[in-house]
């Protein structure tokens, strides 16, 4: 299936059944797409949510199906933070399994933080490059608060400060 077709089918599924997550028609389209494209994670995540809100006609035990779909999403995404969070909330709320939920959320938080560090470092650098120094300083300061030990953040943030001093946005002693 081409990327365009995948996305078109996902959008069609989302809009089916008046857009209601647990609507039968919507679930049908998400299920069909999941069996045609078992590694297409965005669809698996939406199906996972929809099955937790499913109308009675969708089946007797949609929770078992939701769990399988969410575990599949974790696997094929190579344990992405997003998929881990979806599975964790399911296990906590539906299965009442806090002990199993906790390590999944620890793993998701760690991954999300590393992603944020990566994104903020790149964002500060790209803002400095374009001369958007005020915003670069804001992001850099915020990033330093959350990642005081990150060398990458510290360097990007310092580069923003130096540029701001050169431009007269900050007094020299603030470097």
């Amino acid at each position: 299936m081409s990327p365009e077709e995948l996305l078109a089918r996902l959008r069609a599924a989302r809009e089916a059944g008046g857009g209601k997550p647990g609507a039968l028609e919507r679930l049908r389209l998400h299920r069909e797409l999941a069996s045609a494209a078992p590694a297409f994670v965005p669809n698996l995540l939406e199906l996972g949510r929809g099955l937790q809100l499913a109308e009675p006609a969708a089946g007797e035990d949609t929770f078992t199906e939701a769990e399988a779909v969410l575990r599949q999403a974790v696997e094929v995404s190579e344990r992405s933070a997003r998929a881990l969070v979806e599975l964790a909330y399911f296990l906590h709320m539906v299965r009442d399994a806090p002990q199993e939920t906790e390590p999944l959320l620890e793993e998701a938080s760690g991954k999300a933080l590393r992603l944020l560090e990566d994104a903020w470092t790149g964002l500060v650098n790209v803002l400095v490059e374009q001369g958007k120094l005020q915003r670069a300083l804001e992001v850099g300061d915020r990033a330093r608060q959350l990642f005081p030990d990150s060398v990458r953040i510290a360097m990007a943030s310092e580069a923003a400060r130096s540029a701001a001093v050169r431009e007269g946005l900050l007094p020299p002693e603030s470097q």
Partner: protein
Amino acid sequence: MLPRRLVTSALALLVLLGGCTGASEQLRWEGAEPVEEGGGGGDSVSPRILALIARGQFAEAQVLIHESVKGGLMSQATATGLLARIQLLNTKLGEIPARLQRVASFPAVLKDYTLHQILLFLEQRDYSVATQAQLMTAKKLIEQSPRLMEKIP
């Protein structure tokens, strides 16, 4: 005077911190410090609003929230978060989506109780209607179900 305010603020925090589900609930807890009566300068959550919500005086809290936004004391995002929380506190367990009422541990005995009432039972360690585990399951179901209706970020 001060101890009473500390107590109401702590109570308010307990009830509010009970759960921040949706991403829309961007509350700034540092603003919940007991600064001045009726205060809450800048973009912060006034302790008085938190105390009103904790006591279940939702109508008064709503008025104060709207006034704070109008007066530039509170951001629209904070107001939206607080109003959503009030709506959630008013939600009865029996009002969550039907499918979720079929989870194995569903405490049907609490169906007619709102989240606010359930939180009060927990806080007062009142297990006359339901056990602690049932109360915690009910709290979890009411607080977490709205995220299933939201768009996946």
